[in-house]
Every structure is written in C-alpha cells, then in structure tokens.
C-alpha cells in the first residue's frame, strides 16, 4: 500500500501508477453534482471559489448526517462519470486528485494526463466502513445544498486504488 498525502503535489501525483493501492491521509473536500455545477458557474462569472483547488483532492460523496458522537455519517463514493462534464475545467484550476467510483470519460482521462492529476477509485457501497477513516468533517461552502455542500474532511488511511494515473493509464478493478 502506498501512502498518499492530501493536498497532493503534482510531483507526488506523477509517481502514482494505475492499479496501485493507496491509503490517503490529510485534507480532502466533498463535492458532488450540485457543488460542481456551482463551482463551474463561479468560474464562468470570473468569481472567487470558496476553496483553493490548487493541489486539492475532491471526494465525490454526499454523506448521511452524523449520529451523536460521530464525526460523519455513512460516506462512500458516488458515481464519478456524472462529474465528467465539469472536471476538465476544475483541473485547469489546479485540482490534483479525485476520489469516486466507476469509469471516467476519454475527455477526462486526457485532461487528467494533461494536468498531471490522478483519479482514485474507492469501493462503492461501503459508506459505513469508509466513514471510519474520517476524523473530522465541517461544511465550508454551499450549506444550502445539504448533503451536497462542500465539506472539508480530515481523513486517515482512506483506502482506494489509482484508477487513472497522471500518464492517462486506466485501471479497472471490476471486469466482466
């Protein structure tokens, strides 16, 4: 298992290879459909983003509410391909890593390679298990979106596999 620290530098991202299993620790941000739309609208209008995307790692996830005594609720990855239409624009802003489930489009794979970034796949449907890797969670943008708000998570040893590396090589864990 390779240890990955987030935020992730371009140099560190370029060392990762498709198929490599990793444990991610550090700061990541949840963002899914509605938050991606809002981020891209802000960029379109030339306005400042609520988070600095340079070397950031986004986690495509919308957690359940935390029960008392928990830092977060169930918190597994959502389908990455729904974010494909927004991803190349965010990569231009320095976005370095993404965590989700499933395939990415050829355009996104190309944009990942062009920008020296990486896409990590986490096991889908394992939100109760993955929540254990989240030490702290706080809403930092778009609170009106509820579960789709951007949350800053501090994670420890979050398990994933490199599904698209900085050279544009692709690894599929699930093959028919």
């Amino acid at each position: 298992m390779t240890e990955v620290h987030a935020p992730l530098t371009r140099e560190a991202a370029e060392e990762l290879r498709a198929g490599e299993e990793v444990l991610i620790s550090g700061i990541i941000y949840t963002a899914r459909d509605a938050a991606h739309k809002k981020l891209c609208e802000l960029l379109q209008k030339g306005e400042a983003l609520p988070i600095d995307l340079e070397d950031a790692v986004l986690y495509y996830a919308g957690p359940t509410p935390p029960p008392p005594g928990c830092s977060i609720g169930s918190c597994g990855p959502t389908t990455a391909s729904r974010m494909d239409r927004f991803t190349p624009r965010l990569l231009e802003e320095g976005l370095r890593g993404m965590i989700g489930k499933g395939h990415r489009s050829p355009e996104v794979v190309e944009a990942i390679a062009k920008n020296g970034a990486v896409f990590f796949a986490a096991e889908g449907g394992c939100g109760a298990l993955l929540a254990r890797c989240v030490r702290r969670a706080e809403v930092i943008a778009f609170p009106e979106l509820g579960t789709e708000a951007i949350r800053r998570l501090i994670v420890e040893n979050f398990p994933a596999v490199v599904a698209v590396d900085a050279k544009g090589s692709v690894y599929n864990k699930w093959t028919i």
Partner: protein
Amino acid sequence: MREINAAKIADAVARLYADSCLHLPESVKKKLYAFGNKAIIENFETNGALPLCQDTGLAAVYLEIGQDIHISGGIPAAVNEGVRRAVKGSYLRASVVSDPLRRVNTGDNTPAVLYTELVPGDTLKVTVVPRGFGCENKARLVMLTPGDGMQGVKAFILETVHLAVPDACPPIVVGAAVGGTFDKVAYFSKKAVLRMGPNPDPFYAEMEQELLEKIKNVALAVNLVASPTHIAGLPCAVSIGCHSLRWASEDIV
C-alpha cells in the same frame, strides 16, 4: 370488515425504512459471503452503526392491501410521515428534490414512491425498498419485437450489464422482465431484483443460469420474470440491484 388506522402504516414504514438502510437481509449476506469481497463484507458487518450506504435512497413503498380491510386516514400522508420519521430518527440522507429540473432538496427525503396492490383476504403487507440511484441510473428498457426473440433479450440484458459495471456497485443482481406493456415491464423488472431463488419455470431458470455464467465476476444473480404480452410486442426491461441490496417487509395486519 377489518378496520385499521393509517397510523399503523406510518409506524411500519418508519421501522422498515430505517431497518433496511442499516441491515442487509440474511439472504443477501449469504450471497455476499460466498462472493468474498473483503471490504463489502466488512461494511455490512459494521451492523447498524451507520447506514450501509450513504445513498439511503428514494424510498419505494409497496402496500399489498387485502380487499377485505378498510383503512381510515390518508395513506400517502402516512407513508410520507413514516419516511420522515426514519430519516430524522436514524440519520438517513435527504436525497429527494421536489422538481427534477429546478432541483430543490425537500430536506426530509419525502415524498416516497408508493405502489399499492389489491390482494385477496384481510391482510396488509408493507415493503420498503431504499432505491439508491447509483444502480437506479443504470436501468434500461427497450420495446423489442417478436422477431428479436430470446437472442434479442439476452443481448439487451448483457449490454445493460456492461454499461452498468462498475458504476452500479458490483457484485450486482440483475432483474430482467419480458412481456407485458411499456410501464408494467419496468415495474416487474424492479420486483425481479428482490426475488431470491430461480424462476420456477425451468425454461427461464436455464436462461438465468446461462446469463449468470457470462457475468459471474460482477454479479450475484440474474432473475428473469415473464408476463403475457401482445402479438406485436416483446417489451424488455432490466433493473440493476447493487450489492447493498436492501429491503424490509412486514405483515402489519
């Protein structure tokens, strides 16, 4: 005539919706142990600590209502009240938007999708199925023609599986329905996902086995269901169930 109050339906929906999000049915666990993915097994062995999946779904509620009972009080309101209570009490996710294009979250995961079916007798059965959209998005329907036949059906099912994996959280259960009409075939494919065990008709049971053999690296089961249809038609719908195949059911009367 047996009389029941809709408040009983609200209680059952609240209980069953929460339970279905926190625990897998034993029959599903058994299939997953046999499949042997470590993370997935560890996930359901967390056993009610948190919802098994963050997508606690759009709540699909099925009521099988005996024709000899009378229910006092509003049924849809009772169902939504049950959903609301489960979401609040068990910390489930609010994943419903009130309008598909304007997309404002309703905040309590209502409304549910409600199905009612009349059955003989004086019983009332409630089933709650949290419909996560990772797999819901992968469902497909086609109006094949009689000439497409069995080959056309098999090809469409396999094509749907290829499009569904890995987004739909494998290992998956494939529910496929043939026959009926455009709307009914979709309904039956959803029900087929929840069926445990082979089709009682050996003709379809054999077809299930043949299809499963081709996709066994990513699937737990293929469940086929057939209905009478028109001389000009061969509707075919395929629904996908993710490995977090959750539902809960109870006879409340």
